[in-house]
């Protein structure tokens, strides 16, 4: 068991190193001078400030030092939690800006992923009940997964916000309010949260439903299902077993899909101008704020790795087979 976990952690460690290396490499090996390219977009009128910034960024990149030294100082900065200073919101540290946005993205992603996973699995198991359900519910699921996140967000915003007027179209909360634990603020927060959440939820739902449907059919064909039927066990019991066993690969699926889901959240946020990492990313792109962009990238990677690790732990807890194999049971 520890060996299994060690292996997993090893892979995550390597992934992290690879991600950091990519992060370090991209600005250095892409054509053009990153500093001037960055500052060309920064709207700074004060020439003195511009000079200060140029000096700062040249120093941070350390382009005049040997490559390996650049690489190590990059890591060193990372361990100090120093991801650099933003160009766009100069002179605010990138870390602070990102930490402000993270709660919004997490608050959007976590409920959307968990709820869509739970409900999608039920939905898929339900579809596998009969040919008619399968033929009607399933195509809906396929259309949903094929929908680009931003488009469903647009449709929902158009229908429920612009035309319906039930929800606000943009932002995380009304600018007129200051964050507090009051009912007014929280309900305002929720009404801004709902549409981005709904669009994420709907697209992800389709994917889980399809995955569950495919898995449960496979489980219902398995030998143990056949045997239970031969012994006259009611469909209810067989379905319950099949559902539970089909859940296990769906947990792994959660880990695999994480990247796509996060990308979806970023796109959705952009449509609603929701103040999470996605909108931040767009702003950093538009302002050529590469420090901010790379900071976001690192945060996302770390988030994905942590989530993967949690999923691994859950999987081991839920599937008895992994535990048995890992403690060396006879087979």
């Amino acid at each position, binding site marked *: 068991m520890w*060996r*299994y976990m*060690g*292996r997993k952690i090893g892979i995550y460690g390597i992934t992290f190193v690879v991600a950091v290396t990519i992060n370090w490499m991209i600005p250095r090996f892409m054509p053009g001078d990153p500093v001037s390219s960055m500052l060309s977009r920064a709207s700074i009128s004060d020439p003195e400030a511009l000079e200060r910034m140029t000096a700062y960024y040249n120093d941070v990149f350390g382009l005049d030092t040997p490559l390996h030294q650049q690489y190590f100082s990059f890591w060193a900065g990372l361990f100090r939690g120093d991801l650099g200073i933003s160009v766009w919101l100069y002179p605010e540290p990138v870390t602070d800006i990102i930490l402000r946005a993270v709660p919004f993205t997490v608050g959007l992603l976590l409920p959307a992923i968990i709820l869509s996973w739970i409900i999608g699995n039920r939905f898929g198991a339900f579809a596998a009940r009969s040919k008619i359900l399968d033929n009607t519910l399933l195509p809906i699921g396929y259309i949903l997964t094929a929908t680009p996140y931003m488009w469903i967000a647009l449709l929902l915003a158009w229908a429920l916000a612009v035309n319906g007027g039930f929800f606000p179209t943009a932002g995380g909360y009304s600018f007129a309010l200051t964050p507090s634990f009051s009912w007014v603020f929280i309900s305002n927060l929720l009404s801004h949260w709902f549409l981005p959440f709904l669009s994420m939820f709907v697209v992800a739902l389709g994917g889980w439903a399809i995955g569950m449907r495919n898995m449960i059919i496979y489980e219902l064909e398995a030998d143990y299902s056949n045997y239970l039927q031969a012994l006259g066990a009611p469909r209810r019991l067989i379905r319950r077993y099949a559902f539970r066993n089909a859940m296990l690969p769906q947990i792994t699926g959660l880990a695999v899909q994480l990247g796509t889901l996060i990308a979806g959240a970023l796109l959705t946020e952009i449509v609603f101008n929701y103040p999470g990492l996605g909108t931040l990313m767009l702003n950093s792109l538009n302002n050529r704020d590469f420090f901010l962009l790379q900071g976001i990238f690192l945060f996302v990677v770390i988030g994905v790795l942590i989530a993967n690790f949690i999923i691994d732990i859950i999987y081991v807890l839920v599937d008895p087979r992994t535990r048995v194999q890992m403690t060396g049971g006879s087979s």
Partner: protein
Amino acid sequence: MLELSHVHKVYRVGAFGGARLRAVRDVSLTVEPGEVVSLIGESGSGKSTIGKMVLGLTKVSSGQIRFEGDDVSHIRGFSAKKEYYRRVQGVFQDPFSSFNPIFKADRVFTMIRSSYFPEMSDADWKDKILAALATVRLDPDNVLDKYPHQLSGGQLQRLLIARALLLDIRLLVADEIISMLDASTRIDVLNLLGDLKERGLGILFVTHDLSLGNYVSDKSVILRKGAIAEMGPTRRVFENPLHPYSRHLLSCVPQLHRTWAEVDAELAANPPEDYLLPTVEEGDDSAPLTEAEEGHFVGIDQS
């Protein structure tokens, strides 16, 4: 002709190959021309692994396999291997898995031709195939130009033997070749092995079924957990089994005219003498044999 000396096979299993699984342990044996040697064992005895090592499909961990004097345990290079397969061929357990289901069955012949006889004319090749089919007693009209699923298991196995005969082989490794066949056809395939033996071929016959091993072979090797438990002339091994494991196996085999109860009663009436088995130290992975009578060897106790 074929000589295995102190052959071991250790698999590394588990994450990063941490654990070790010893599949074959210190096996030494020989196969002479015109001799059928049966490797008999239950699942996990390493019998198939030995067959695969002889065929060069699995690497040898340590020890040596010699064929006609050459060391073949680590053949390097594609052409050396190809030359080896000119003289040594194999037939496997599952006839339906031995044929690629999307191609016609006689493609196994075509592959031999393109690798080994690219120069041969169509007419000569045709003659060669007909001769090989005649040896395995197959009617060409029934088997050529057919898909594998249109043929029976027995026909497919005979096709594979015919395929091996297209080459000038000296040794045939027959890995459980009849265990998937029906009772009414498996005996014909076994008889065929007997015919090949008459032509001077050496045959390494891998099987889990004691009565089948007994029927065709000159020498029997009983394997347990990768090591040889008992080895000797078939008649001696079956009439006078010395290793307790061989005795146990023989008492469990369902026989056609004797019930288990009868076998047990006979054993109880005149119990065989215990034979002193060779021993090894804990942690020693060798498996020595002692010669009980001429050519009849007994191995370590691993129970």
